[in-house]
Structures are given as C-alpha cells and as structure tokens.
C-alpha cells in the first residue's frame, strides 16, 4: 500500500523510484493506482528506474486484455507511458509463465503455439527487481 501523500513526502527532491505492480489488470484497482502514481511522479520530475510486474501484476502485460471500447485500457496506458518517458516495463518471467503470459521465446521454449506478451513489455527475473531496488532511493508497491 502507498501511504497517502507519498508524492508530497518526496518533496522537491528528485527521487529515483522503482514501481512494483502486484495487482491484476482487471478486478482490482492496484494497477490503475500504480499507473496514476507513475504518471504523477514523472510529471513532478522524478525518475522511474523501472516498473516491475510481479504476482497478479503480470496480467497487465497481456496483449489479449480487451476491455470494452468505452473502458480504460491499462495495457495501452502502460505502453504509452513507457514510450513517452522511456521507462522499462519488466515482468517476472516465472510469475508470468504460471499465469499464461508468454513472450515469443517463452512460447517456443515451452512448446506453446501462441504467445501474448504485449509490445513494450519485457520478460525479466526477480533479479531485476532486486537490482532495481538497489538502484533506486525508494520502492513503491501496488
């Protein structure tokens, strides 16, 4: 959980922040709050070292998520954010494979006919979370 006023707490100092997304793309608000927080932090001039998707957060990276046309498209929002601000979007590959989110390479390695990792996201390991925490002043989890 993020303490309310977390952005205020950062004050005028420009921080390096790693964002961890654990909540699913649909059915819970965590990932939308993560997106909004990330956008706000970037607007305020903070550096986002990485957005790391773990647990059910990996559902945010599926290209097959298809909300109705009048609904918020989180996958697309993450992609646009990454492109506009050059932010890395990294999945925990083990968490993703277990939940049916595979890159082309994962599909090949696991003898699956399809893959569904959305463009702009990449597969990584928990090591990238740990090195990301190391390289950041602050971690914010959703």
């Amino acid at each position: 959980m993020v303490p309310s006023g977390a952005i205020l707490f950062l004050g005028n100092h420009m921080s390096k922040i790693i964002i961890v997304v654990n909540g699913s793309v649909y059915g819970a608000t965590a990932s939308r709050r993560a997106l909004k927080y990330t956008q706000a932090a970037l607007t305020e001039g903070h550096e986002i070292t990485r957005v790391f998707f773990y647990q059910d957060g990996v559902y945010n990276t599926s290209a097959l998520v298809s909300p109705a046309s009048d609904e918020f498209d989180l996958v697309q929002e993450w992609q646009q954010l990454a492109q506009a601000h050059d932010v890395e979007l990294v999945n925990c590959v083990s968490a993703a494979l277990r939940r049916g989110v595979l890159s082309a390479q994962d599909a090949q390695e696991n003898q699956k006919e399809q893959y569904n990792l959305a463009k702009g996201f990449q597969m990584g390991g928990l090591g990238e979370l740990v090195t990301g925490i190391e390289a950041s002043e602050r971690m914010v989890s959703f």
Partner: protein
Amino acid sequence: MKSLTILFRHAPHSTAHGREGLDLALLSASFEQTVRLIFVDEGVLHLIDNQDSELIGTKDYIATLKALPLYDIEEVYACQQSCMDLSLDPAALRFNAQPLLAKEISQQLSVANEVLVF
C-alpha cells in the same frame, strides 16, 4: 547493499502470496541483500510443523524455508499476538522463528530500507 524486510500476511497454500514472497526472499539473499522475514496475521501458519500441502494439490513450498540458513537468512520473526490469536505456541514455531511484540515489529519495519508485503 540494502536491507529488505519481507512481511508474510496471508495463510499458506490458499493463495500464491507466501510462495512468491519466499521466492523473492531467496533471490534477494542470493544477490547479497540483507533479508529479514516477518510472519504476521495468518502468515504465522507457515510456521506450523507437519504440513503436507501436496494432499491439497499444491507444491510444498514451505519446505524451502529449510534452506534459509543456506542463503544466510538468519532473522525470521513471528508476531506473538498473531500466534496467540490462532492458539499457536510461539515457542513451538519452525525455522527458529522468534516471536516479536507489535512494537518490536514496528521497529523492524522502521529500520528496513524497503518492506515488501505478501
């Protein structure tokens, strides 16, 4: 090097929280971070002896806790109040988990560089 405190709040087996928290604990320790584990609320149920989760069709990830000393994770704590609420004897917990009072847990959380909750 940073110190990470990983908090386990969910009961084992019924969700993947505990397993994914433990995966992160071991991985972080292998990257030479200082890792502490604290079991609170129903998370203390990870520390009961003689569980056989394969009977309910889930992988016995709790067995991995035995490997903690190999990863130099030596600080394992359990919330004393949570144990009492669930009628567990804090002295009988596995993996040398040390019972802590609520204020001692707060203290642990305040000294960690980062806290991850599972």
